[in-house]
């Protein structure tokens, strides 16, 4: 009787419930199978050294599914497979500062998640971001740059937040924080500054000192500066860069700097266009100079390399730098080998080379090199059909290979030609 009376209401409700349940079950199955499970498979060595690493990258599929992905020794996690709230909240893939969001939730409010803006030790967590106020006068834009500083004292759980104007910035067009360090109660903000001066584009690598008792900028030190002609004179240009791992948020006493001279080759025919239509001129590096800057004493020292190292460094593009307490390292790839130059920080002398033979390990050129304490971590950037991405860990002191592994698909049936994986970062916790 009741059914007969309410049949419209009952039928409609049943149709809705059945169809929508079926739809959501089917969708969740589709999402679950959309992305292949990845794993870090050990070939040889000690698995414990990869217990604390997170490799992040992107997965692309020909049928237009793409997702950020993270691989650890426990398997893979795809951003697209996260639950709604995880997706909403998480910095994914997690970077070096992502976990601070859980540990120091209030401190981390309204802060950029860029690792270069952070400094972390036992007592303090410091943050320096850049805020821009832009004003427009007709067609001219005027930017005012500010440092947004916040330092958390971990023992008292109190933070000191303030904003200060970056000094001397009449015509700055770009201000970027490259690294933040805390030295004897003073913040050292390594800053990359760009501006135009007399039709020259000027780049300066500066260190600003901020006194945390007065919250004022008490010093600035220009480490390196270059002027490049933006138009016309394209014979060559000079590059300056900070080689310290900008993702490293730990305490570092020294900055490792590089200044390189690039010259246009004699014959213009060496210019070629790559797939994106960008001109890839056969620029040649004619000189590379390296410096160490002591943040505490503010001493600036050149590194004297042997002629062999200097020449090798001129014929490679992939130069990276690393730091630990007592050593600075410069790595580069040459003739199928990864070379590590070991520079002592007490007398700036260069020790004997550490070499990892990539040809033997079947590693391609496209890699990322990371260092943590006394270990070197290398991963290949690409994985595609049947070609795994290698991951190796080496000992910096002895040059021994500690671990060799590769990122592969867990289920071999998932291997198709229709995908590509690109890895771009490795977080070592």
């Amino acid at each position, binding site marked *: 009787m009741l059914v007969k*009376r*309410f049949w*419209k*209401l009952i039928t*409609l*409700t049943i*149709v*809705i419930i*059945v*169809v*929508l349940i079926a*739809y*959501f079950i*089917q*969708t969740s199955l*589709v*999402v679950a199978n959309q992305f292949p499970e990845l794993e870090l498979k050990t070939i040889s060595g000690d698995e414990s050294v990869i217990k604390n690493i997170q490799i992040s990258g992107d997965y692309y599929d020909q*049928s*237009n599914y793409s997702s950020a992905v993270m691989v650890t020794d426990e398997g893979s996690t795809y951003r697209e497979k996260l*639950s*709604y*709230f995880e997706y*909403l*909240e998480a910095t994914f893939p997690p970077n070096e500062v992502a976990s601070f*969001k859980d540990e120091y*939730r209030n401190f981390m*409010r*309204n802060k950029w998640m860029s690792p270069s803006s952070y400094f972390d030790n036992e007592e303090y967590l410091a943050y320096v971001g850049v805020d821009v106020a832009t004003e427009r006068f007709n067609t001219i834009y005027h930017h005012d740059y500010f440092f947004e500083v916040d330092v958390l004292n971990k023992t008292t759980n109190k933070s000191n937040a303030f904003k200060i104007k970056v000094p001397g910035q009449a015509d700055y067009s770009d201000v970027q924080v490259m690294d933040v360090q805390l030295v004897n109660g003073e913040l050292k903000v390594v800053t990359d500054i760009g501006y135009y001066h007399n039709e020259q584009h000027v780049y300066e690598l500066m260190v600003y000192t901020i006194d945390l008792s007065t919250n004022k900028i008490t010093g600035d030190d220009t480490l390196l500066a270059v002027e490049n002609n933006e138009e016309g004179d394209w014979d060559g240009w000079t590059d300056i860069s900070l080689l310290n791992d900008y993702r490293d948020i730990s305490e570092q006493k020294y900055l490792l700097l590089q200044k390189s001279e690039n010259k246009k080759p004699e014959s213009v025919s060496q210019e070629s266009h790559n797939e994106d239509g960008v001109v890839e001129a056969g620029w040649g590096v004619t000189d590379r100079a390296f410096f160490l800057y002591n943040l505490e004493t503010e001493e600036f020292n050149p590194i004297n390399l042997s002629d062999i190292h200097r020449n090798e460094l001129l014929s490679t593009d992939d130069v990276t730098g690393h730091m630990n307490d007592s050593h600075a390292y410069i790595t580069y790839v040459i003739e199928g080998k990864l070379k590590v130059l070991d520079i002592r920080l007490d007398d700036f002398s260069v020790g004997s080379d550490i070499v990892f033979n990539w040809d033997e390990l079947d590693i391609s050129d496209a890699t990322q090199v990371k260092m943590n304490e006394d270990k070197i971590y290398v991963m290949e950037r690409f994985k595609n059909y049947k070609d795994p991405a290698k991951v190796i860990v080496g000992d910096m002191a002895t040059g021994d290979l500690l671990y060799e592994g590769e990122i592969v698909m867990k289920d071999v049936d998932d291997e198709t030609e229709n995908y590509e994986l690109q890895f771009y970062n490795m977080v070592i916790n």
Partner: protein
Amino acid sequence: MMSYLKLTNFELSRFFKMYLVLIGITLVMQTLSVVWTANNYLGEINEQLSSGSTVEEAINGWGLFSFDFITRGFWFSAPILLCIASLLIYVFFIWYRDWLGKNTFAYRLFMLPTARLNVFLAKATAIFLMVLGLISIQLVFLTIENELMKMIVPNTFREDLTINEIINGFDYLRVLYPVSFIQFFINYGIGFMAVIVVFTGILFERSFRWKGIILGVLFSGIALIVFFLPILLHETILNHFFYPTELFILMLISGLIVIAGSIWMSNYLLNKKIRV
């Protein structure tokens, strides 16, 4: 409870013929659109084949046939838009029809021995069920039409898509059919809230006539501000203070406040101010 269900069933019955017509139009138009688009494609392919091309050349020229060809066409979307428009209009008409004619039906409705709010809730439920009903039936239709397409177009010329891929290929379908259940809940929850607020606006008009229109618009404006208050504060004076999950919870609360406030206001208007 019983009178609420009776009223809901009654509201459904009143629109049911029209509802079936909408479903019928959708099925007919979309089926025709499948047959028409598929045959058109096959016609072009056949023409190219008879002019001496190989199958491969024909596929290169025209592409593999997929359901996307159909969803992109006017005749597929037109009935969906028609259904949406009809229900939008009916959100108003479900109230105004009771005031039409000589013997105001509203008078009888409000004289029923039950809380007047039940009339309000029954109308809201009816609209909500009809929306979800169309959404569900469209999913069934998609499945049927996809099979139909497979029967018409031979394997060689076809790229088979799953229901999810069909929805993915078309933006507004993704709004109607989100991947996650929570997103579904959000989309339709906001829709439900909007219907309740509009209902309250209508009751303002039915209570105070011309003046009521202004009050109704004012009420809707306030509801809108209350709902977006967390985001407004977050973006302005609070300087991005909240984390996304916190903002979500605050918006959930502000949404519930809007719904509760609207129902309370409607209850008051229905009991004290309504004119029949």
